[in-house]
């Protein structure tokens, strides 16, 4: 069952029950009050009747000048009194044995009185009036009974009063209440339904919204209005959608990067493989291969195989660095720079480029081998970008609490677009030149990884045809 149905039905049930209980109680109460009033009235009249009976006895005594009256006399008197009241009143007189000695009206009631033991009850409550209501075919009758003792005999006097009107009124009122409650239940349920639906409408809005999010539309946001609870809920859901969107975008970016990486890797592997397979196949199937051809073909195979080797080496470097903890030790920047310089001597000689290093005595916490390879890669790039006879400068100094290494060349430089892509794996500013030099476009990507492991930053400041400066910034916390 849906929430709105539950709320609606339970509220409706409670309201109708409450209204009915209240109206029934009120009805019963007013009926009871009426009955009490009628009872007072009936007792009052009964007293009057009783008195007239006693008077009649006294009068009969005086008139007949008798000191005592016989039960027979009493019966006559009773009959006179009973019949004297005429149509006005149903009444009866019983002697002590419960036998009727005089009766007027009564009819059906008489048998009911005897059956219900009304007379016996009168005897038990001598000083009081005994009142009871009977439903006869002539309507409701209120019977009042009392005991009278005269001439040594005890008699029971019963008068009855018609109170059908009260019951009729009760019935009328009950019918009316029933009708009103049916109509009002309809009206209430209508109003209630609208109220419940209105109050719960933000819920269905939220429902639609969550469905939209679940369907993958993370950009949509819900309006925060309505009652406080819904406002809060909407707000929290928007917060949730925000974080989902952020995460989804991040994951998409990662997946996309990975996809690009793999596509690029596959391309970078297939290119040398194509030359290798092609030339190897030619060498295999061609009958006459002269010396020049052999040298050329096999030369390409060797060159391309070296390229694959360098690619796989760099790849292994990147893969190995993913998720590995590095071992940092205090190392002198100066000594690392001078060692890197030594390693670079053949390259410097080949390109006819000089490397000038200026370094303060700084000790940093780093993985020595990785950090040297970071320096090596960046200086190598600088050397390759420099024309013959130029100088590459390396300066290392403390700057604003951080250790900064700046590597400057006066070479070909890069455009801002190239700088932006420089760290992407497999990006090569000049593909054919870079390939000829055995590059795979992974050098700076590798540098970035090493720098990240040292919480260091690598930034490039470059201008085409002027040169490039690469800044490696090692935060103060890593310096000792």
């Amino acid at each position: 069952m849906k929430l709105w149905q539950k709320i609606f039905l339970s509220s409706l049930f409670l309201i109708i029950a409450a209204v009915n209980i209240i109206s029934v109680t009120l009805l019963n109460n007013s009926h009871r009050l009426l009955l009490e009033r009628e009872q007072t009235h009936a007792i009052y009249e009964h007293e009057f009747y009783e008195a007239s009976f006693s008077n009649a006895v006294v009068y009969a005594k005086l008139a007949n000048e008798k000191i005592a009256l016989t039960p027979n006399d009493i019966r006559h008197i009773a009959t006179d009194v009973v019949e004297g009241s005429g149509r006005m009143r149903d009444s009866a007189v019983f002697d002590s044995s419960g036998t009727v000695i005089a009766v007027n009206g009564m009819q059906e009631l008489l048998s009911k009185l005897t059956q219900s033991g009304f007379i016996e009850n009168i005897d038990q409550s001598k000083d009081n009036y005994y009142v009871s209501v009977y439903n006869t075919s002539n309507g409701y009758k209120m019977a009042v009974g009392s005991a009278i003792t005269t001439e040594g005999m005890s008699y029971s006097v019963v008068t009855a009063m018609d109170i059908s009107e009260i019951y009729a009124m009760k019935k009328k009122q009950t019918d009316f209440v029933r009708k009103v409650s049916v109509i009002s239940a309809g009206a209430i349920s209508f109003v209630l339904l609208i109220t419940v639906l209105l109050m719960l409408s933000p819920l269905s809005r939220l429902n639609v919204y969550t469905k939209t999010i679940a369907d993958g539309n993370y950009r949509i946001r819900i309006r925060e209005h309505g009652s406080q609870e819904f406002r809060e809920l909407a707000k929290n859901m928007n917060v949730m959608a925000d974080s989902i969107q952020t995460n989804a975008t991040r994951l998409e970016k990662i997946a996309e990067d990975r996809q690009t990486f793999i596509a690029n890797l596959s391309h970078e592997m297939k290119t040398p493989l194509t030359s290798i397979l092609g030339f190897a196949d030619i060498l295999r199937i061609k009958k006459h291969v002269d010396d020049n051809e052999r040298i050329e073909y096999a030369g390409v195979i060797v060159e391309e195989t070296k390229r694959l080797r360098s690619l796989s080496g760099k790849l292994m470097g990147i893969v190995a660095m993913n998720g590995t903890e590095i071992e940092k030790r205090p190392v002198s920047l100066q000594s690392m720079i001078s060692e890197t310089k030594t390693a670079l001597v053949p390259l410097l000689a080949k390109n006819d480029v000089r490397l000038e290093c200026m370094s303060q005595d700084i000790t940093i916490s780093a993985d020595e081998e990785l950090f040297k390879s970071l320096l090596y890669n960046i200086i190598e790039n600088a050397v390759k970008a420099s024309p013959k006879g130029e100088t590459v400068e390396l300066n290392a100094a403390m700057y604003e609490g951080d250790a900064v290494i700046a590597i400057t060349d006066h070479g070909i430089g890069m455009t801002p677009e190239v700088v932006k892509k420089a760290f992407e794996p497999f990006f090569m500013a000049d593909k054919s030149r870079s390939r000829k030099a055995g590059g795979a476009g992974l050098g700076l990507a590798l540098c970035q990884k090493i720098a990240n492991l040292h919480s260091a930053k690598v930034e490039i400041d470059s201008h085409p045809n002027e040169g490039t400066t690469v800044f490696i910034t090692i935060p103060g916390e890593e310096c000792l």
Partner: protein
Amino acid sequence: MINILIIEDDENIAKMITAALSMVDYNGTCRYDGRSGAEEALKGGYDLILLDIMLPEMNGFEVMEAIKGCGTPVIFLTAMQEVSDKVKGLRLGAEDYIVKPFEALELLARIDVVLRRSNKTQDTITYGDITVNIDRHEITLKGQHVQLTPKEFDVIVYFLQHQNIAVSREQLLSSVWGFEFGGESRSVDIHVQQVRRKLGLKDYLITIPKLGYRLESRDNR
């Protein structure tokens, strides 16, 4: 002489393709970026263009659009394996595509198919005293008509088109019987023996152990 334009940015691959083409006496011309490749193609005079997709300046698809008018058949060379790229290339009007890396003979076989389709191959091949008319499906030895089955005919034509090249049984199977043919290399041997016998090629169509067969050229290149 068949002239083929190679548009490929990797110099070594271009060199390799040129070398492979020279084995069957095709002349290869190389261009290393899309723009100059398209310009060269539009000059005309080429029987076929081998076009790489990832090219500087203009990519292969753009080059394809640019040279649509000149009517030269194009074979794409691609390192990408996505079907969508292949479909895109073929939609643009390419005759075929070859996925890198590829074997030299596979490249030549694909080129032959395209050239045959555009009637660029020689109609008659002369080999010593054997003359083959490919169009008419006729072969004569010392002026005498020789009766060959269609498959035997295809086999000798394939060897004549690939003289001095070692051809494996698999390559013969895929070129003559079709790429999807799942037959045994036994039938290749039987056909080669028949051709040898009928055309008296015992000393020229030689078996190379572990590799296949080779038809030696008569001019001793």
